[in-house]
């Protein structure tokens, strides 16, 4: 398939989807190899770099998405009412950080690292769909094991957890 046409199709799909789309799905739609889809996405990133463009393409958790560029934010704010942004507490962020790198992990293990009770924090993270139960540990009491969700990566705009380790 013509590469320019393929880029157009990718843009159309990502635009219509709204939510991040798995690379595998894009491969299926375009009927080209995965490597070619990845190359196309990289080329599109270059295109979107232009000043003329107000959106950008990025990867979150093995999925691809379109979003507005951060520097458009002030203009969007002038038209739309500012959203009420509820940010995560420090307790929630620390607990998430531990679960991200130690998953699957039990509540007791998290508490050992943080030195405080994390019951409430875990419940609130579960409610926000940032973490999920991943089964139980084969040990006395069969404690629940926790892990992070796909949504968690999307929430922070992360492609992978490893990306965070590199930033260290």
């Amino acid at each position, binding site marked *: 398939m013509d590469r320019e046409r393929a880029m157009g199709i990718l843009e159309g799909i990502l635009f219509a*989807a709204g939510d991040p789309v798995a690379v595998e799905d894009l491969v299926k739609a375009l009927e080209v190899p995965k490597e070619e889809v990845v190359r196309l996405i990289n080329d599109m990133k270059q295109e979107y770099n232009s000043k003329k463009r107000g959106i950008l393409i990025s990867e979150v958790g093995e999925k691809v998405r379109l979003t507005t560029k*951060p520097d458009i*934010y002030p203009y969007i704010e002038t038209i739309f009412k500012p959203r009420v942004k509820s940010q*995560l507490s420090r307790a929630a962020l620390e607990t998430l950080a531990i679960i991200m790198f130690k998953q699957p992990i039990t509540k007791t293990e998290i508490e050992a690292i*943080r*030195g405080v009770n994390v019951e409430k924090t875990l419940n609130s993270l579960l409610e926000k769909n940032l973490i999920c139960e991943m089964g139980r540990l084969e040990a006395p009491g069969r404690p629940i094991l926790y892990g992070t969700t796909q949504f968690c990566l999307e929430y922070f705009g992360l492609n992978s957890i490893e990306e*965070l380790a590199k930033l260290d």
Partner: protein
Amino acid sequence: MALNVKLEAFEGPLDLLLHLIEKNQINIYDIPISELTDQYLSYLEGLEKLDINLASEFLLMAATLLSIKSRMLLPPMKSGDVQMEISAVTDVEDPRNELVDRLMEYKKYKDIAMILKEKEESESRIFKRKPEDLSFLWEDDFALSKITFDDLISTFSRIIRNQKVAENLNPRTILKEPLPLKIKIKQVYSIISSRKKVSFRELFRRNASRLELIVTFLAVLELIKLNKIKAYQNEVFGEITVVLKEEA
């Protein structure tokens, strides 16, 4: 009160210890344990006003610190440097090691939490798009199989929550018969008698349903049969004109 606020800024005993270490520029691998313990305990005095759950965690750490301090006081009592050498050679653990490991591990996640906070911040400055409603692509393509009555109830309550319009439906009169022929005959007759001459086409409302078209047609036929009106056409497929038949 000011002290309370200050203490609540700490996420737990490890966080408080890291703060004290940083503030006093302490080398984390060679913590002056009695100095740190004293400072920690003085902070704890302000904790009594805090909720018990939090306080117990801080108290547990106080006990740990005191225990390390007492173990360090036990013989062999040498200078710090020699102590380190001995522990390296004879495999005698430095009582502080476990605490240092815990602090380092906690610090690692505390730092990652800071990065996450930045990520959350920058993510809040970009906008995603609402997914497009693509259902028109496969509207005809469905089966009942997986739908339950509960699905209908939850779907409906979700729609109604989102749309207050639904509550503003006006009260209205409902006809049982789709469109009684009798009424249509009267309507058609009144149009023709008031205008004397009408084109057939004009008798049909724009947007009329198929049923309404049929009923109107029947009404015209009925009126012709009753000798009330006359219809004529000047050419094949031409305009049909309906005129009122004057009472003889």
